[in-house]
């Protein structure tokens, strides 16, 4: 018998970054596995997820928001919403959590080499894209043009502002931010993410578009990508569902015959068109 897939490894919260405050607070937790062997053997690719335990509270499934090119730790970005995420937001550096994974499929980073990438995110949906962006930036020569389109309701709701400050100085990266409503001192785009996409107007030629964010945003982003000439198999997204096991057994995260934990979370739009099931 292999090792018990339900038993998490212990990890210490190394640092916590407050991304967004207020009612819908978001924090990024940097987690370091306590066991050095686990630290070495834990490998993943952008898009993959982990099940994070807060002992006594429960487990939640999060996209890994750091890149595999960053060694020694993983990061997860957590929106404070339910029982476990609220308790996580109470944690401090030095606290111990459980981690098991990595789970699910990933962005096809090897198949996409040489292609232009258009990455469109909204709110906390940027988490899996952040992993992909870091990965592409760290392997910059292997990919074509990189357009990053990211938006939130207000400037205070934008995650990863430090990352974006750096990205804006990268010459070969086009990072375009947006907020929904006008604010004093905001010099980037004002409006919804799908509109910012039309303004940026990326070419579908030799391109892959990935969009993660709230369902309503994804809906209009996909419509607009269609208008720009992107075909169904050039568009990818990630999905989320309530989960318990993360390994395709507990039953609840299915969309049709596919399990988001195991067969996802990354799906092509073409795949989604063909699944009959509730999302």
């Amino acid at each position: 018998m292999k090792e018990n897939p339900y038993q998490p490894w212990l990890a210490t919260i190394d640092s916590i970054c407050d991304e967004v405050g207020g009612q819908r607070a978001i924090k990024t937790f940097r987690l370091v596995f306590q066991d050095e062997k686990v630290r070495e053997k834990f490998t993943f690719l952008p898009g993959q997820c982990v099940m994070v335990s807060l002992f006594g509270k429960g487990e939640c499934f999060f996209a890994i928001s750091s890149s595999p090119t960053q060694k020694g730790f993983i990061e997860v970005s957590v929106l404070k919403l339910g029982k476990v995420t609220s308790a996580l937001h109470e944690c401090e550096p030095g606290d111990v959590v459980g981690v098991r994974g990595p789970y699910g499929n990933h962005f096809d980073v090897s198949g996409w080499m040489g292609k232009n990438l258009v990455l469109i995110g909204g709110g906390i949906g940027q988490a899996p894209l952040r992993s992909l962006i870091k990965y592409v930036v760290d392997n910059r020569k292997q990919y074509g043009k990189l357009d990053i389109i990211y938006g939130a309701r207000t400037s205070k709701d934008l995650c990863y502002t430090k990352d974006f400050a750096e990205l804006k100085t990268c010459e070969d990266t086009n990072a375009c931010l947006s907020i929904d409503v006008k604010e004093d001192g905001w010099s980037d785009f004002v409006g919804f993410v799908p509109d910012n996409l039309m303004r940026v107007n990326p070419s579908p030629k030799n391109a892959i578009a990935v969009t993660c964010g709230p369902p309503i945003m994804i809906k209009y982003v996909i419509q607009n990508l269609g208008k720009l000439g992107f075909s169904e198999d050039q568009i990818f997204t990630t999905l989320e569902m309530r989960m318990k096991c993360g390994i395709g057994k507990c039953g609840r995260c299915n969309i049709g015959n596919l399990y988001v934990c195991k067969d996802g979370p990354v799906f092509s739009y073409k795949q989604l068109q063909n699944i009959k099931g509730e999302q």
Partner: protein
Amino acid sequence: MEKYILLKNKLPEWINMITPTYTIFAPVKEEDLVFFKPITKPSEMTLAYSNAIVPPKAQMFHQTETMFTFTQGKNIRVNPASLPDEKIVVFGIRPCDAKSLSIIDPVFTNDFEDPYYLTKRKNAILVGLSCNQPTVNCFCTSLNGSPASPEHLDILLTDIGDKYYVELNSEKGKQLVEKTKKLFTPATDADSKKKKDVEKKAVDAITRQMKINNVDAFVKKLDTIFDAPYWKTIAMKCLGCGACTYLCPTCHCFDIQDETTLDKGARIRVWDSCMRPEYTLHASGHNPRPERMNRVRNRVYHKYNYYPKNHQMIACVGCGRCIDNCPVNIDIIDVITKAGEVKP
């Protein structure tokens, strides 16, 4: 396949001989219901039963199970639960219930082996008893099953009058009989014929039929009627009680919860049911299956569409429990048979 005869009056002796080595789960009557329970002597069990109310999958996949314990506070430690190494015999399991275990095996095996289920499954010997008198809602024959099939069992006993016809269908089965060989005599051709006659009689006694002529065609048919109003009609009388899922031998869904005292805790897994709205409810409030229709349809599709797509088999054995125990008479035979007639 090796075939033997065990005289009925030798059965208690056989059970007594294997009791020191194995924990024996057998059908035990409690008031009007039959349950699989551990027995210490043969007289505790009943063999005059149609089927147990709770399927014996519960012996491999416990209704409640501690996955591990942990200490809380500053020095968190995770203590693995000890996996049981007891050898068990599930005695008197029906061929349909044995098949259900073969059906759910791939769920617990796939890329991540489930140690809780697989340890118990590997330590279990299934000694089946043919179903000589199928009940009114039995329909195993509609799903390529037979009330006297040894296919998914280690050993099958068939009552052929004053003796049991014993078929050994696996190494595990052979080994169990090998140790107690003196009780068994080789079966004759006449005994084999008797078994066939008993099986035919039992098959003929199954009066209800679920109409799925071709599994692939039916799976495709369901793909075309996902949005049909039919499912709303079916779901209208459902109460969402979940009895169909709890008593189904192929339902494998579970929930994971932490239970704690001040400084100690345990991670527990418990059976769950897709008939509950909380089952899929996101923390955001979004629920992908908000209506009872969504949940009823998901149950039917999981068994007759999703499961065949993923594992090339229908996740139903025709035991009839969901029909027998539905408080509002939702009848899966009717649901499926009529679904075949729904226009896309």
